[in-house]
């Protein structure tokens, strides 16, 4: 579903991501693990089309992110780290806007909004202005806006950052619930979260990919991470 071949990203002289080769299967949940500054967010931003690779090839559902950027972006839903949303909008307004922007047909928008609101338990707050939402609801709305056009790939940047324990568990269950239906790529620097949520983990350090391991074959992620980093 997602293929990266020798993907590199430079910002001037700074090498943020170097020669990353990775493939993510349909329905798989992949975690990107690494310390701050390891290139996780840059890699995610390239997957979403927010940034373009300096070199290498990145494809989403067979569409090249540089040569067919709109087709590639259409197939990705993105939840940025701080859950940025249009605070002046109501939840229904935001979800409808994002659905229309991502190409959902006008007639199908109310249905798409209702469906995603139901599945993410934000139906009760559809008419509430976003600025009045609690942190937990805000996070769910951020995920809802990423899923409203039913993308085959969902990208989440540090999805549990700043959440309380209950919200962390809810988010984990939500991501696990998407497994099989949607390819999920998430970043985190919290070892325990990655270990409990993902099918495979990719460990990054200083912009390079150190290893990709199946969680089923990695009983002690902490030991592995320490041995590599």
């Amino acid at each position, binding site marked *: 579903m997602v293929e990266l071949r020798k993907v590199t990203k430079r910002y001037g002289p700074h090498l943020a991501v170097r020669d990353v080769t990775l493939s993510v299967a349909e329905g798989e949940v992949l975690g990107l693990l690494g310390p701050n500054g390891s290139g996780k967010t840059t890699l995610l931003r390239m997957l979403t089309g927010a940034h373009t690779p300096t070199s290498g090839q990145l494809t989403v559902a067979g569409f090249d992110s540089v040569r067919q950027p709109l087709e590639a972006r259409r197939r990705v839903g993105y939840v940025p780290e701080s859950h940025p949303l249009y605070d002046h909008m109501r939840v229904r307004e935001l979800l409808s806007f994002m659905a229309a*922007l991502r190409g959902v047909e006008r007639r199908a928008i109310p249905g798409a909004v209702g469906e995603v609101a139901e599945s993410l338990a934000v139906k009760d707050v559809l008419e509430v202005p976003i600025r009045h939402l609690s942190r937990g609801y805000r996070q769910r709305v951020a995920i809802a806006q990423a899923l409203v056009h039913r993308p085959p790939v969902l990208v989440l940047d540090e999805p549990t950052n700043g959440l309380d324990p209950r919200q962390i568990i809810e988010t984990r269950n939500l991501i696990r619930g998407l497994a099989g239906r949607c390819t999920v790529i998430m970043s985190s620097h919290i070892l325990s979260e990655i270990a409990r949520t993902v099918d495979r983990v990719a460990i990054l350090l200083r912009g390079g990919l150190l290893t990709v391991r199946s969680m089923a074959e990695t009983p002690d992620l902490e030991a592995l991470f320490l041995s590599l980093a």
Partner: protein
Amino acid sequence: MSALGVLLRKELHAAFTSPVAWAVSGVFLLVAGYTFSLSLFMSKVANLTYVFHQVYILLVLLVPVITMRSFAEERKAGTLELLLTAPVREIWVVLAKYLSCLALVAVMLLASTSYAAVLALYGEPDLAPIAGGYLALLLLASLLVGVGTLWSSVTENQVVAASASLGTFLMLWFADSVAYILPAPVDLFFVNLSLLGHFAPFVSGSVFLSDVGYYLTGTLLALFLTTRALADR
């Protein structure tokens, strides 16, 4: 609805419901109305020449306040990422923001046409300079909004965007002053760069293609650079 339509609807709603829009429109209509009344009662001449020059200054001062939030606000809030990861071309995002700001200025200018209506009701004004003046103001607004949008796209600080826009407008306004100390033919370049030099002929009823071309070229250049600034990531 097309992506541009979806974006434009959102931007128009944001532009016309923001407190900034109301404040700017209020200041504009208050000062322009004051100038119109004063010039009419003092000169007792049915023309808007003085008003057009006053509105020119008002646009130079107020457009930075209108355009400063275009991209800077979204960049700071992080919502620009939502737009740039959506399957829409950068040019649509730029055009939606540019057109919404221009629409706000156009509505302000439309409200000021009541002055022309008053003149037509009680006198016999020469309509050519009035039509030329409004065309000039619209073209001027187009260029100013384009440049303001460009500055807003390269920073997340609205004050920086507004200051840089104002600085650019003032430099363009007085660009011809430096021509006095420059040798030919370099001086001509700066004379032709002047914002006011291309504005004044319209107000006297003379519409030159070179003046129209100046404003349109400047607008297109600003929009092109804004799109490049967004695409270069």
